[in-house]
């Protein structure tokens, strides 16, 4: 199989270009199997690109087939945990584009015998994934455990976790939110994707989260906010975070995004949370997103 190599970009422009390609991948993956969750995936594309292509320290050694060699224990690396596993398309696209596996494999998403299951899993051995997620509310606990292990191992690396805002309605999230500051988990950065939407409608209507930032702050977190669809703001924030870690407090980022970001008819609604575009809609959506790295 032919493999595609990508150099690691350093400029803001190139991150934006990658994010555009990732959004194309998301749409084409979801269209290809006529299922999956494009809305939140599109909204979080910028964060995952910024993390994986600039912020996170990951093992850049190439292994079999020229792909990044992947160790599940992640020793000496920064780690990322996706708690809201239904936005797997963005995770898979970023992992493939970063070099963990061939981008052509994105075409197998949600299809029989694929490593790209509907929700991420370690079960099929997909490089880049360290825990299964999908049943909501569990990722922050896992991330805290991984952060604790890094402390026990004397490692300086950071652990990042992404959750949805609807997911904040799960009780386990608040068990974890309470634990982390009480145990000085200061090598942990938790992002909450505040897009204000969930399957049944706006989070305000379904079960109002109210002021999430104030809640995290009351529990003892250092709370930051960012426009998660502005690459300049994101990269500035991520650089700032590197100076704020290691000071006794975990960091929470309330990341405002737009569900469906980048595709005009998918934005400003919860309707594209878990719906695949048809042929015409795909064409209309792709026309809004420049192909920058070559479609798979």
């Amino acid at each position, binding site marked *: 199989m032919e493999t595609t190599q990508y150099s690691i970009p350093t400029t803001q422009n190139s991150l934006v270009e990658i994010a555009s390609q990732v959004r194309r991948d998301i749409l084409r993956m979801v269209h290809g199997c006529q299922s999956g969750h494009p809305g939140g995936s599109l909204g979080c594309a910028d964060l995952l690109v910024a993390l994986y292509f600039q912020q996170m320290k990951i093992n850049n050694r190439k292994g079999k087939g020229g792909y990044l060699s992947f160790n*599940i*224990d*992640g*020793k000496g690396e920064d*780690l990322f*945990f996706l708690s809201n596993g239904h936005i797997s398309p963005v995770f898979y696209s970023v992992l493939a584009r970063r070099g963990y596996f061939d981008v052509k494999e994105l075409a197998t998403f949600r299809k029989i015998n694929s490593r790209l299951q509907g929700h991420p*899993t*370690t*079960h099929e051995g997909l490089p880049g994934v*360290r*825990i*299964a*997620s*999908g*049943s909501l*509310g*569990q*990722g*922050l*606990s*896992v*991330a*805290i*455990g*991984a*952060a*604790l*292990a*890094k402390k*026990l*191992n004397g*490692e300086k690396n950071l652990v990042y976790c992404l959750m949805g805002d609807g997911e904040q309605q799960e*009780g*386990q999230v608040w*068990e*974890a939110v*309470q*634990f982390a500051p009480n*145990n000085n988990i200061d090598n942990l950065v938790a992002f909450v994707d505040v897009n204000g939407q969930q399957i049944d409608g706006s989070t305000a209507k379904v079960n109002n989260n109210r002021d999430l930032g104030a809640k995290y702050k009351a529990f003892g977190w250092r709370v930051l906010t960012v426009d998660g669809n502005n690459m300049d703001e994101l990269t500035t924030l991520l650089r700032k975070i590197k100076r704020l870690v290691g000071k006794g407090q975990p960091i929470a980022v309330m990341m405002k995004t737009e569900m469906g970001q980048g595709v005009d008819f998918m934005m400003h609604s919860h309707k594209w949370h878990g719906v695949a575009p048809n042929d015409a809609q795909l064409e209309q959506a792709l026309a809004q997103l420049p192909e920058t790295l070559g479609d798979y």
Partner: protein
Amino acid sequence: MKKYTFTEKKDTRSGFGAGMQVLGQTNPNVVAMCADLVGSLKLDTFIKENPERFIQCGISEANMIGMAAGLTIGGKIPFATTFANFGSGRVYDQIRQSVAYSDKNVKIAVSHAGLTLGEDGATHQILEDLAMMRALPGMTVINPCDYNQTKAATIAAGEFEGPVYLRFGRPVIPVFTDPDQKFEIGKAWMVNEGADVSIFATGHLVWEAIQAGEMLEAEGIDAEIINIHTIKPLDEKAILKSVKKTGCLVSAEEHQVAGGLGGAIAELLIQGTPYPQEFIAVKDSFGESGTPAQLMEKYGLTAKDIVAAAKRAIARKK
């Protein structure tokens, strides 16, 4: 009937604490976690000797299981501990997704299983955990029978790679197994060889089965008694060999009749030659408050119940 005697009674959970003490000294990756039940789980010595490797989770079992999964990613071997009720049913989904499906090297070590928890009553007396944990692909399920075996099982679980559900109990019971035993996960222990009926017992019911064997012997019945300390993977070879010889069986466990040891054995036997089987287990009922002895008697989990069941099984032989 092989003679079993004891000089002292101890709780199996103290065997767990002793096993953890050994693991704390021998394996620097072993981490203990607890959800506000340190005294009940007998972790005091481990914590005293390894304070940096103990994580007090507070009353947050779901978070504890998730954190345990995360700790394995950094090469740690976490023992997530609480009462069996809160370490199984309450966190089934966390165990399913973050531990079993993710194939994480987490040990879920739980005390106060079953009716013998006693006076706290049915809210705390889990009788469905073996069924739940046994149904999870890749999960190893262990239910040792006394202090010494629990200590050995704890050490074996720490050395084993993969998710383990290790279940033990609250009350003091006779210590009758070898203090230096080697615990082999998945290998049944032949307690007594016999010819007339096979009694497969697990956990607290093993001592009851031994007493039942003596009572049966007095009536001229030669019972084979096998300790199935590992419910999953089940020692199919040992079970098949025994029933082929005796032609009937009794399964005995401190658990619901549905889905536990008896269910596991029935699933196995029905695929080959079925034999008359009698179940010593709780019959589709919750427990209640009372002393452990009163509860075991009321719910039919004593040696004399095993004797009656053995006779019924023998009578059903063709």
